[in-house]
């Protein structure tokens, strides 16, 4: 019996290892290829740092990593402020209009980016939002807010009303309760939103491509997308860029895997 269990486990282990190879191969390919020159990639033996040097010549890598960071930080800050307030309002400060607001927010989750991108682009150009970071920051913030609000609403619903009533009896206002009690208790949900949004915004191409017109403000993902669509056919250089652009999001993923899973499955409800 025990032997049979062992065999079953062994088979599962082998199958899972095979799957793991399929999933991880692209990363191996990226790393391996990025340490080759183009000639080495096309057949010659050995490894070199040449493609990494070329990458830093072809792309203002440092600047673009900084741009990505600024855009992510700006959008996420807006999303957090706006969605925690709205979630608190929708769960603990309910009025007759609340269901309507909630419906509007949930409805906005159904709007695909591609459906609004043309009018949003024209509006942003009229408002001069295409020159710096702001156009992209606002669009990312608006796209992330509905789901973040949904998440915060269901999280705050879990806070007992007694707690709030007790605080009111102690003379705290609804605003003070929000900043002194609700927010500190919501840290896990807030971390989930940060992780989810960071990966989404860091990895996005379309919004950055359209809403950041000045190449100096381009994010790393857009820079890479432009590089691949442009003249560069030097595969090792592209792989070095891919690897570099992927590292921050992968690092966040590895550290905050649990929060990411929580965020992903939050939409299922209980």
């Amino acid at each position: 019996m025990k032997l049979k269990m062992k065999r079953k486990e062994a088979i599962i282990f082998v199958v899972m290892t095979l799957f793991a190879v399929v999933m991880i191969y692209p990363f191996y390919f990226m790393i391996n290829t990025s340490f080759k020159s183009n000639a080495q990639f096309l057949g010659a033996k050995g490894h070199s740092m040449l493609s990494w040097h070329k990458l830093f010549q072809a792309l203002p890598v440092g600047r673009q990593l900084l741009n990505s960071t600024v855009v992510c930080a700006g959008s996420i800050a807006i999303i957090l402020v706006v969605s925690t307030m709205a979630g608190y309002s929708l769960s603990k400060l309910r009025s007759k209009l609340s269901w309507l607001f909630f419906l509007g927010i949930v409805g906005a989750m159904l709007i695909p980016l591609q459906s609004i991108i043309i009018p949003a682009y024209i509006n942003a150009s009229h408002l001069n939002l295409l020159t710096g970071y702001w156009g992209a920051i606002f669009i990312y913030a608006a796209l992330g807010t509905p789901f973040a609000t949904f998440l915060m609403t269901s999280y705050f619903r879990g806070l007992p009303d007694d707690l709030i009533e007790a605080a009111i009896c102690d003379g705290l206002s609804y605003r003070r309760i929000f900043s002194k009690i609700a927010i500190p208790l919501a840290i896990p949900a807030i971390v989930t939103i940060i992780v989810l949004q960071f990966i989404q915004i860091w990895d996005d191409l379309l919004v950055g491509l359209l809403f950041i017109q000045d190449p100096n403000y381009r994010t790393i993902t857009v820079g890479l997308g432009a590089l691949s669509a442009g003249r560069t056919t030097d595969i090792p250089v592209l792989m070095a860029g891919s690897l570099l652009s992927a590292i921050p999001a992968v690092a966040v993923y590895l550290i905050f895997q649990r929060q990411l899973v929580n965020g992903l499955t939050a939409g299922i409800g209980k």
Partner: protein
Amino acid sequence: MKVIKRDLGHQRRRVGIIFMAPALILVSAFLGIPIIQAVYYSFTQWDGLTAVWTGISTYTHELRDPIFWRVLENNGLLLIGIPVAMLLPMGIAFLLNEKVPGWKVFRTIYFLPTAISWVVIGMVALRFFAQEGLLNGLLKGFGLSFIHTDLLSSEKGALFAVSLTFIWSMVGTNTIIFLTGMATLDNSLNEAARMDGASNLRIFRSITLPQLRRFIQFSFIITVISAFTALFSLIFVMTGGGPGFGTTTLEFFIYQNAFSRGDFGTGAMLGVILFLMMAVLGIGQLAIMRSKDE
């Protein structure tokens, strides 16, 4: 006391609306108003500067355009990949759920593509499917060199390559969804059924699947939404929508119409069509969940 209570209710409503305002303003300004504009402009001929009202004719004209149907066909073909993009992860989740030593490491590896941008995935996929890429190398290695593929050079082949890449990248997300579902399973039901002599298959069909219903639905919705609205960057990097219109899906067609051809009116209209498709899907999902709750 009563006065205080009424005062409190008043305060609550007032603060409630103030707290709601920033989210409402942000979402209205950058999603709400643009979607209304999109509906308006879908009835016009619009180059981004001047819009000329043309009424319903933009729609009727587009519906008669064979390219539009070609694009929708691509969306339809992408749907064929969806059962695979769900069944494969379900199988993987079952294996992971056996909790063989090291399963957490495997889980981390399978979920990894979730953190990678479509741009990067597309670039690697491009190399994989290329003439001298790994796919052909593998075929050769297995002694199948007579099947020398050049998927990306034919319309159907390119779409197939995009679908495969899409399925690969959905594995992580769907595996996690099913794994979460399996953690909620009530094992005592299985035991009881086994006592009654039910076969494994029967247990799976009659006990496990119904319990996973909600998770299957969720995975389905996520997968369809991704197939229709998340593949822009992948297509942009991998094929540019080609060859011909081979990999132009509706979302890519919107971009092409507006930003390559400057036909913003048609782009807006296609956006409205995409929105309607997603709205029907979302409302259908809500309706199913409601009916199950009651």
